[in-house]
């Protein structure tokens, strides 16, 4: 019965462990009386910065669940100079994310080339009706208020583009120079 020699020390160790846990401070956060302490990278809801969106549809295409609904139309901007080319612009009519389908994978946020989608740690948007989980453009824009500031860059990294763009000298107005006749271009 050699295995029985280990029973009593094991039992005492069990008692010691529970006694020690009892004396330690509990780290339970009593939600909802206490706001939860979430990291800023937490994935709670996706916010839309509509002015950045060009309706390229990449997010809607890449979403594995097809939960992003985008409607857009093209508008023509007449040429700035006489004889110039008319410009075209996408205008976003509808941008909706269906959170009853969304699986919070973040592919849409990653793939957006124009930084129009952001993660926000806000998670308290449970609804009584599943149809209310379809957030339209205005509601998605509202979530932008809860998007945390971007994470600080590494101490040895270069300044972010947003900062250098502000510090860059203003560009002079464009002068169109016609090459001299006969010179190679």
């Amino acid at each position, binding site marked *: 019965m050699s295995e029985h020699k280990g029973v009593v020390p094991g*039992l005492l160790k*069990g*008692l010691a*462990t*529970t*006694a020690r*846990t*009892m004396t*330690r401070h*509990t*780290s*339970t956060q*009593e939600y909802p009386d206490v706001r939860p302490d979430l990291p800023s990278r937490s994935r709670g809801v996706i916010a839309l910065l509509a002015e950045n969106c060009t309706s390229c549809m990449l997010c809607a295409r890449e979403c594995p669940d097809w939960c992003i609904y985008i409607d857009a139309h093209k508008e023509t901007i007449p040429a700035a100079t006489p004889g110039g080319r008319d410009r075209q612009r996408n205008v976003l009519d509808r941008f909706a994310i269906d959170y009853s389908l969304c699986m919070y994978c973040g592919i849409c946020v990653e793939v957006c080339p124009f930084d129009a989608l952001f993660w926000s740690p806000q998670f308290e948007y449970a609804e009584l009706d599943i149809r209310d989980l379809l957030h339209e453009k205005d509601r998605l824009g509202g979530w932008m208020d809860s998007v945390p500031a971007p994470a600080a860059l590494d101490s040895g990294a270069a300044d972010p583009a947003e900062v250098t763009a502000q510090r860059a000298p203003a560009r002079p107005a464009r002068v169109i120079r016609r090459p001299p006749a006969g010179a190679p271009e």
Partner: protein
Amino acid sequence: MSTLEVILRAAGLLAAFLLLPLLVGQTEHKVMAHMQGRLGPMYAGGFHGWAQLVADGAKFVQKEDIVPAAADKRLFRLAPALALIPYLVALAAIPVHPGFAVADLPGGALFVLAATSVGILGTLVAGWASANKYALIGAMRSAAQLIAYELPLALAAASVTLAAGTLSLGGIIEAWEPWWLMWQLPGALVFLVAAVAELQRPPFDMPIADAEIVFGPYTEYTGLRFAFFLLAEYGGIVVMSLLFSTLYLGGWRGPFDDLAGWAWTLLKGFVIALLLIWIRVSWPRLREDQLQRFAWLTLIPLALLQLVITAVGVVLMGGAS
């Protein structure tokens, strides 16, 4: 003793029997929670959830009264009372204060053990009357376990009564000496383990474990009847803790016991109840066959050994005091 005094004593006993298990239950909620790194009830009653068990009682009272169609209705309704009342009766014989027990009996130790044994019938009847295979299996396991552990319990208690020379619990307390804890140590350990098994508390809760057999004999019970079974479990904890402190820790004995004997009783009983809760949180469950083997092959020989040691001690000291 006048009729009025009898009524007052009975009322006091009922109040204690309803209050003390709730205190033990709330302590278990909180102590178990902190031992598991949680907080336990915090909402009910505002201050750290003190009213949780009161809220639970209110919840159980307003539940629907369901009796299974195939059940033996009279026995089904009787079983909770059969489990609960013996512990109430056993509590009456426990001495609380010097010279005071609700019912001071000359054969107190024997009476308490006999009364707690009747509680086994409650579990058996519940399992049989439920008309449920698994309830019956649980009841049979329960019966086997409780009968097996009845013997070490009685032998250990017999050893103390032999040392004290009397069956009366008050007499045992008066004859108690602090060094008896050394003399009766094997018996004390046997009694503690056997008491945990009699109460069907972890690590001996195989017959009623909800992960194993739903809830064994209590599967079909709901509402107030279920609450009575739970009350019987915690009432049993109170009775066994007080009995242990009476037999082995000197009951109401302590400094200033003429004034504060009742406080010593409650304190010692509470410490033992805390020990039972601590054991529940820390140790895994025994299998039914391990349980039986432990009772018959380890505890009973140990209890018999204690009896021999006690007898030798009594003879050497020239008869009991």
